[in-house]
């Protein structure tokens, strides 16, 4: 129970920071939803990085590396280390400037103004919102699973999920963007230190990693985990398209509007790859190293399930296959390693680090609330009729409703569905990124091009999720054709439809 007590103390501290520590008078929508566009450089860097790290970062990355080996780092971390800072440099800075100049609070507001459209903006909002909801549900599920694991099963899944959802909802409700940003900053510091501390503690417990690596290399079953021989180059290449999704995520795009000065992007752009390295390298390495711990019963069971899965004939029932997959899944290997090698009090502190990564749904809840109040409530006359105070209260009510709906779904639906939905959402957001590039850099782009891209993305996400292997052309992941077809549609449809007025284009180029 000691780890659980430490984690509860951590949750209380998070609540305090989010609600009280940096509270300001939140009268205006800009203050509540964007922290008054006044975040400083350190908070901007750490909070933006933390906002983009989810439960997957610590638990999922180690689990993926446990099953697939070191390729996890190149697929997900170093590709992101290259693409994300570039998108912040080229797109984030421009969105920030337009937000300051024209008062935009969401990407859809910018699209509506840039392409002189109304309802097409609503269509973009609908697709963005639909792709974001699975993340929020996964966040609640991650909270329930992590709290159950850290308490050794004393806190059941439903209660763990409820506690995490309540804490997140409270500081988003009261603290808005400022509270969320400061909580994210605190959490990022915590989980950045998590990797190094976990690595040192587990290394001591295992008597160093050299023997573990040599034993993995000595076995034909595990040696491929230390290279990329099992991965096709086209699959590997495809993964460089996935980080394009980051700047198209509404919570990241909206966060770009919170910086006080343009200069605050500088440190973020420079240090983002180092932050990724600091958190992903230890997690991936530990995930791979866990394969050598056959003497740990929970890990041995996973390895046996993996071997049984590999030996299963193709005609085996799908239920058997799914059950073995669940047993072989390595999402909790870091927790198991900490349980085995870390003293109880340290396991508690490291558990708090895991909770910090799991509780990433805050910014997504706030982003969806911002989008709803700005892109729907305000756009369709609510702000004019009821005033800005009611708009902020509507945003808060939306936060509560969204959390309750996400929690209810998280209790009833199997997690696998939402894990998959999140994978499709990544491809969907990557394929939406041409909207931002066209709006900011191409004079001739039109609202009809934007509509074609939006409809294509909605269709492609549904199609690829329903038809196995759809759009996986020539061994590529669907994200590549989805993004390239988006680009082609934007170009072709824009060229055959009338452009916005030169006065509007002139304000952007």
């Amino acid at each position, binding site marked *: 129970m000691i780890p659980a007590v430490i984690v509860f103390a951590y949750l209380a501290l998070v609540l305090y920071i989010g609600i009280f520590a940096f509270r300001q008078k939140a009268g205006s929508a800009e203050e509540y939803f964007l922290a*008054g566009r006044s975040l400083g450089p350190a908070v901007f860097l750490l909070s933006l990085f933390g906002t983009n790290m989810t439960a997957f970062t610590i638990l999922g990355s180690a689990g993926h590396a446990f099953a697939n080996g*070191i390729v996890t780092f190149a697929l997900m971390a*170093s590709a992101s280390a290259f693409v994300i800072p570039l998108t912040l440099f080229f797109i984030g800075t421009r969105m920030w*400037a337009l937000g300051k100049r024209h*008062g935009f609070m969401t990407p859809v507001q910018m699209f509506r103004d840039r392409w002189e459209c109304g309802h097409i903006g609503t269509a973009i909002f609908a697709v963005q919102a639909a792709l974001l909801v699975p993340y929020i549900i996964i966040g609640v599920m991650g909270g329930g699973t992590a709290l159950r694991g850290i308490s050794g099963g004393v806190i059941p899944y439903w209660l763990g999920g409820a506690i995490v959802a309540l804490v997140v909802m409270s500081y988003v409700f009261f603290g808005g963007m400022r509270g969320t940003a400061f909580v994210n900053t605190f959490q990022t510091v915590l989980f950045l230190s998590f990797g190094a501390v976990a690595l040192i503690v587990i290394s001591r417990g295992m008597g160093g990693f050299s023997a573990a690596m040599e034993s993995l290399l000595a076995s034909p079953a595990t040696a491929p985990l230390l290279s990329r021989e099992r991965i096709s180059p086209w699959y590997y290449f495809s993964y460089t398209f996935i980080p394009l999704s980051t700047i198209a995520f509404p919570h990241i795009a909206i966060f770009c509007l919170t910086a006080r000065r343009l200069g605050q992007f500088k440190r973020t752009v*420079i240090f983002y*790859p180092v932050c990724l390295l600091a958190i992903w390298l230890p997690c991936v390495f530990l995930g791979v190293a866990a394969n050598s711990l056959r003497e740990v019963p929970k890990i041995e069971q996973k390895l046996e399930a993996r071997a049984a899965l590999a030996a299963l004939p193709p005609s085996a029932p799908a239920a058997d296959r799914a059950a073995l997959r669940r047993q072989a899944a390595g999402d909790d290997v870091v927790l198991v390693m900490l349980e085995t090698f870390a003293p109880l009090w340290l396991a508690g502190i490291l558990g708090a680090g895991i909770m910090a990564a799991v509780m990433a749904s805050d910014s997504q809840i706030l982003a969806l609330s911002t989008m709803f109040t700005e892109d729907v409530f305000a756009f369709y006359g609510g702000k004019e009729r009821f005033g800005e105070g009611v708009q902020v209260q509507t945003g808060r009510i939306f936060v509560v409703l969204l959390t309750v709906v996400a929690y209810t779904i998280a209790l009833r639906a199997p997690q696998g569905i939402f894990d998959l939905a999140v994978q499709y959402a990544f491809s969907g957001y990557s394929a939406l990124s041409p909207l931002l590039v066209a709006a900011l850099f191409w004079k001739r782009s039109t609202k009809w091009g934007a509509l074609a891209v939006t409809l294509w993305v909605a269709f492609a996400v549904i199609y690829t999720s329903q038809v196995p292997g759809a759009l996986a052309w020539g061994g590529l992941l669907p994200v590549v054709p989805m993004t390239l077809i988006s680009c082609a549609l934007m170009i072709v449809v824009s060229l055959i439809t009338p452009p916005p007025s030169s006065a509007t284009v002139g304000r952007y180029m």
Partner: protein
Amino acid sequence: MNRLLLATAIVALYLLHQDFWFWSEARPLVFGVLPVGLAYHALYCLAVTGLMWALTRMAWPSHLEAAAPDRTRGPAR
């Protein structure tokens, strides 16, 4: 000239991510523990940091700040 150099560096770093030369190799183990493919990508992240530093030094879009009025009051937090 600077811009051309930076554009070349961006393309080069993207190509360097597709490191087929360490595809099937685990050895040597760097520092006795890190498979060479993993060590390469850790170093790659540091190289990207260098590129980002160069971008912010040589191609920073400061004109964007000049065109954006400061709508906030008080110190940054």
